[in-house]
């Protein structure tokens, strides 16, 4: 009996992992508590005017008769989607080529570049907006007051996330060697970027795109203080007269963004799958996990965008 005990104790210590019951308790308690607000939101949306539960408020949201009341909300959602699309375009067409260029051609600049991409986190959006307000007064004079100009400010807000997601993939794919090979075979820079780099960093680029969309759709600080109607601004506005509509929309968007991220996380990269199926031994699996962990650190480190 004592022999079994001795055997068991180091086994638990060796893995460095908590015992299963403790793990499960922590998970159930914390996740349970975190589900309460979401359940409360759902319960809230089902309350009927005269008491009891029903789909009254959900129906009211899509009722054409109320379309005037929700006009601003619809406009805000439309604006936010447009802003997300333009900001994603900034990430693809401006950030990606620049990050690749710095990585390949100006490696000595990469430290400066990295520091630069941390600045939008160190400078809170609420501070930045103090300076954006006078800047946008000039922009409105020059380019007009259309909503799209706001995407130019949003690009800065998503720069840290986009940079980290893309650069960690660049390092992972061994971009330098591949690009040299492509160049020596006579490929133009554009071909290199489009046919070597983009497929190589596809995962990082997708992750950057998703984070960009999430940050832009959730953005409130800059848009509200610059008096632009985005989804979050319209939500706050609508919540004053119709809290049910605000809660339904919030719940739906939380669930939709969660689903998008979950689906993305479920698509396993090809390379990793090959690694796993090719060799079932421990070291390969560990290496794959370590890479995944490192990527996660790099992409998601220094996240502070809860504006």
């Amino acid at each position, binding site marked *: 009996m004592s022999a079994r005990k001795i055997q068991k*104790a*180091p086994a*638990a*210590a060796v*893995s*460095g992992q*908590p015992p299963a019951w403790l*793990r*499960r308790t*922590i*998970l159930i308690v*914390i996740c349970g508590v*975190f589900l309460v*607000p979401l359940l*409360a*939101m759902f*319960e*809230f949306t089902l309350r009927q005017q005269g008491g009891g539960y029903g789909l009254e408020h959900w129906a009211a949201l899509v009722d054409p008769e109320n379309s005037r009341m929700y006009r601003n909300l619809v406009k805000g959602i439309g604006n936010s989607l447009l802003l997300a699309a333009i900001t994603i375009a900034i990430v693809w067409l*401006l950030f990606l080529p*620049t990050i690749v260029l*710095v990585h390949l*051609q*100006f490696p000595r600049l990469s430290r400066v570049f990295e520091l*630069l991409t941390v*600045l939008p*986190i*160190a*400078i*809170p959006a*609420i*501070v*930045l907006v*103090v*300076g954006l*307000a006078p800047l946008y007064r000039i922009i409105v004079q020059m380019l007009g007051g259309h909503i799209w100009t706001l995407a*130019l400010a949003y*690009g*800065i807000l998503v720069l840290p996330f986009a940079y980290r997601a893309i650069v960690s993939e660049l390092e992972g794919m061994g971009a330098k060697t591949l690009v040299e090979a492509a160049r020596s075979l006579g490929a133009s820079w554009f071909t290199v970027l489009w046919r070597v780099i983009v497929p190589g960093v596809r995962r990082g680029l997708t992750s950057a795109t998703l984070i960009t969309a*999430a*940050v832009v759709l*959730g953005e*409130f*600080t800059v848009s509200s*203080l610059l008096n632009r109607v985005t989804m*979050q601004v319209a939500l706050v506005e609508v*919540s004053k007269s119709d*809290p049910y509509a605000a*809660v339904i929309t919030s719940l739906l*968007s939380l669930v939709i963004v969660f689903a998008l991220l*979950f689906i993305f*996380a479920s698509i396993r990269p090809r390379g990793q799958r090959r690694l796993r199926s090719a060799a079932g031994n421990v070291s390969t699996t*560990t290496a794959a996990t*370590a890479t*995944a962990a490192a990527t*996660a*650190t790099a992409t998601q*480190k*220094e996240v*502070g965008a809860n*504006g």
Partner: protein
Amino acid sequence: MKWLGLTPFALYVLIFLAVPSVLAIGTGFFGADGSFTLDNFATLTDPIVLGSFWASIWISALTATVGAVLGGLLSFALTGAKPGGVLRRVIDSASSVLAQFGGVMLAFAFIATIGIQGLVTVTLRDSFGIDIFADGVWLYQLPGLVLPYLYFQVPLMVIVFLPAMEGLRREWAEASATLGGGAYTYWRRIAGPILAPSFLGALLLLFANAFSSYATAAALISQGAQIVPLQIRSALIAETGASRANTAGALALGMLLVMLVVMLGYSALQRRAARWQR
């Protein structure tokens, strides 16, 4: 020639990051008439403004500490879960949603939960006879920020700290066990010291996150300006004239100074933590 490729990005960052930052800090040094003055910084000695700095700092410290402990526990519990497994994917995605997307919507979640008619408020009152608002409704006041803030701080901790937790090598535990170390020794002497810089770094990042957070508070608190970001809001949207924009500049500089100290500490800790992550 190849430097030319950097110009579009350089121009963009100059106009939309450098210029606004300089303007934000700069406006604090000018009066409404455009002349140089240090008068705006008198606002930083105003008891109400000082109070809001103090409130911002303690609410950030409180939610960062509790968030780091709970998020740390959750990461600890998740180390056994298979990376890429369903549980991990659910937690990863949910953490990103709550930490990066929530903002205003988290305020609504808590109005539905512990608002006057919220599910938890009503359940506690009707079924258990507990009135959480016996001393007045605190959800729309400073204390009301604690729970919504934790709702995005804990997920952020998981995002930041879980990779460090997973960076613990199996070999280290094995070496410790081979030399006769038990679980306590392993955590006390090996895992603890290795994780400490990551943990403290994450704690500072959470502090910075709460300190700069605006959306949740703005959606919850419509009366008064209990924290610095709300002070900036009332300075920016005041209808009394341009002079308040300069006050906003002074407040912004105050916030930046706090952030600077926090971020310097963070990068120092990050360098220490990086030693073990190779």
